[in-house]
């Protein structure tokens, strides 16, 4: 069985607890305008050009091969680390990689996904059997705007969150911040409601960066000029969330 990925990154310190290996799957069901990994949106391999260098984003990897790569750093997972599946939307691949997850679980490897959580519940349910830790993005929470801008189904998102909490999974919420998108008066208020409802104690926020410009160019995609938050805005938001007795970490990604 093979699965399409773009990269395996070892020694990741920001993708969950401990030291982790992160696997980036290709393919996503959303189209976030600020996407930092545009090479992971399409499900197909894509040729690219940077300067006079050509290459291909995406390659098929055999599950056993992938397992071998993940286990290379297993000595480093002892401090709480493990593997993180990212993407793209990793949950879309969950059935394909289920056998791998099973084997990793038998080896006691801690598994984490970085997800936007707008996938059908059948996929989420498969993941519940193996994944211990969910890094969940909070993006655009209004039903219409989520549909219009991201192409996502917010009802599914809310329902899936409910499922994760009922399953008592460890969840880390992360909020990407972009003016006019996630940082609007309406959306901030929806975010605060969500955080309050689930009595979240810790959340990470990060400003949208424009580091992916080269990747957009290499794919011939138009580079979206997204405006991140000013320090003042960041500070404001941080204080608002802290007002709910929630710890906030501002990540520099």
């Amino acid at each position, binding site marked *: 069985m093979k699965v399409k990925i773009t990269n395996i*990154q070892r020694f990741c*310190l920001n993708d969950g607890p401990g030291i982790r290996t992160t696997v980036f799957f290709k393919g996503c069901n959303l189209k976030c305008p600020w996407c930092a990994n545009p090479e992971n949106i399409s499900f197909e391999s894509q040729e690219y050009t940077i300067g006079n*260098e050509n290459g291909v984003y995406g390659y098929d990897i055999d599950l056993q091969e992938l397992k071998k790569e993940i286990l290379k750093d297993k000595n*480093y997972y002892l*401090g709480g680390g493990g593997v993180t599946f990212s993407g793209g939307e990793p949950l879309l691949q969950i059935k394909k990689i289920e056998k791998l997850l099973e084997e990793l679980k038998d080896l006691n490897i801690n598994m984490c996904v970085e997800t936007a959580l707008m996938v059908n519940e059948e996929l989420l349910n498969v993941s519940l059997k193996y994944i211990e830790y969910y890094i969940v993005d909070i993006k655009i929470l209004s039903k219409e705007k989520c549909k219009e801008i991201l192409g996502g189904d917010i009802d599914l998102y809310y329902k899936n969150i409910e499922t994760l909490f009922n399953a008592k999974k460890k969840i880390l919420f992360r909020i990407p911040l972009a003016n006019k998108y996630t940082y609007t008066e309406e959306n901030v208020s929806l975010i605060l409601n969500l955080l309050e409802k689930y009595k979240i104690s810790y959340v990470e926020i990060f400003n949208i960066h424009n580091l992916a410009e080269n990747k957009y160019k290499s794919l011939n995609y138009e580079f979206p000029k997204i405006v991140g938050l000013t320090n003042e805005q960041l500070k404001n938001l941080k204080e608002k969330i802290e007002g709910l007795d929630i710890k906030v970490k501002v990540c520099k990604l």
Partner: protein
Amino acid sequence: MSKDIIKAIIGEKNFEHVKYARKIYKKNDFENKKNIIECYRNTMIIKKEINKGVQIKRLCEKLDIGEVNLNSRFYYYIDEFKQLYNQNIVIANFAIDYDKVLKCSLSEYKNLFVDSDDEFSKNELETINGIEILINRTIKKIGDHQVKKEIIDSLNGIMDRKANGFRDALQRILFFNQIMWQTGHVLNGLGRLDLILEKYYENDIASNIMSKKDAAELINDFLVNIHRFYKFKSNSLIGDTGQVIILGGKHNERGYICNDLTYLFIDAIKQLNYPDPKILLRVSEKMPRKLMEKALECIQTGLGCPLLANDDIIVNRLIDFGIKEDDAYNYGTSACWEPIIIGKSISQNNVFTLNLLQPLEKIFEEDRNLEELDSTDKIIKKYKDFLKDEIEMIGEKINNLKFEKNPILSLFIDDAVKRKKDVSMGGAVYNNYGILTVGMANTINSILNIEDFVFKTKKIDLNTFNEKRKRNYSEEQDLIKELKNNKRKYGVDREDVINLTNDIFVYISNILKDISKKYDKCIKIGLSSPAYIDQGKLTNASFDGRKNGEPLSVHISSDNSNAYTELIQFASKIDYNENRINGNVIDFLVTPNIIQDNFEKFVDFLLLSIKNGFYEMQLNVVSSDMLIEAKKYPDKFPNLIVRVWGFSAYFNDLPQDYKNYLIERALKNEGKNY
């Protein structure tokens, strides 16, 4: 300053003086003629004597005794302008056992020799007389200062009693350290100071003679004194003094040892922010987490130390090599990273550097018919033949080394006194030689590139490849990029790459075993060397995409931004058995924010890496932005310190090519283009 200029200024004295004055001048960056003349006038080389001890005594009679420093509770001075005349190599790279120095008075030493009239004893007796003279002259010099009574008491004490307190012990270490440097011993280490001083510290604390805070101040004061003459003490580059303080470490009965002093020394080094002296922390799975946290706090400042040496690997390797168990547990270093046995070994650990890339170059430089080289195996075989010649040449050179008689070291290194045999004649318990190697990564990457591009994908034939290399890859930017980006490369934890590395490493080691037998000399080898820039200059373009004269790879490092765990996994699978113990250090560049933002995870990383089995590791915490700024505006960064090879130095003190190479590596590490 040229020899001729001095002659012109002062007239003829003698060549040795000129040479020495020049050396001193170079090290101290004297700026004007007055200083040059001053330096020259002060220079004195004690004339040759048949009895080396007499020569040492003369030196002690002639030395300038420096003014006492009223801000310090210690006395420490080196007369940089007077030295012994030496015909042969002065033994370097050792650490005397200061524990013994503290427990034994000079008269006890003297008593060992008074009734003997053999040559060895006569030399030792004169040497001790010289030390006595120096002590008395020093006491006389500081005699007027009432506040300095404690120093005088300590100096007197050296003659007739054991050290009797923490400050007293530190003063005694300083005094003998001063003598080591004064008599021309470079790269001399300080040993396990936290362990040696433990009893003195505990007693003084228990009997309320001092507080922990007092101890911290004394340590600070001690380090300031040790740092004082660091330019004079420097070996090949400023900062390369070999003044290593060993902290922590396993003990064969007590398990992992560390104490208050371990922490106090690290704190003091961090606080002082000097590049020298430097610390080496002996680490083990059994060490407390908070000690690793303390070490990382120090590393994080960018000081480049402590270097981490993995006791869980090294101790057993030393035992297997033939070091007695007790001694193996008492290893240290005194130059960069080459293990020595404190107080027992005369290990000339860095006498020669073996450039591993040159034998490969040799295959392709000669007018050889390359058609016969139609497989990787054949190339490796040919490479090994040339390599063997190189190693045999080094073996011969080692066999011809002659060392200067050394009654000073013979006094402090076991078993010279017991055997009545000078250390230069083999009186020490362990007499080893060490070879450093440079260019392993370049060699491995070259061979892998030939295999992949010529034999596997057949993208290029060997002749064309070699021609392009000989033309220094002129107009071949794309090829260079491809060669450098081969996925199979040194530092990647792929079985085939590791096997090839071990194959060559073990081959060298086997040749050395034969040579050791042939000359009856014990020779070790390791995968680290300071010579990456100097040897790089002497080496033509190579198949790894390196151009003529460019630096060779640094120690065990990876030349791109591979994950740290990957390099550690690679290094942990290298075979360090048998004689392959002469320092094997992983060299990391880390950007400051990675540690800042993930401190606890970084501690995890270091602790788990010990378990993984690295040999030694050093971390250079630098950002390319800062280095580039510092190169442009040195005045803005007077205190910027970086790790160079096995030592740290002020960035501003480094030659331009070292600055450039560090910047290049930092940029690569951050994934930026150079």
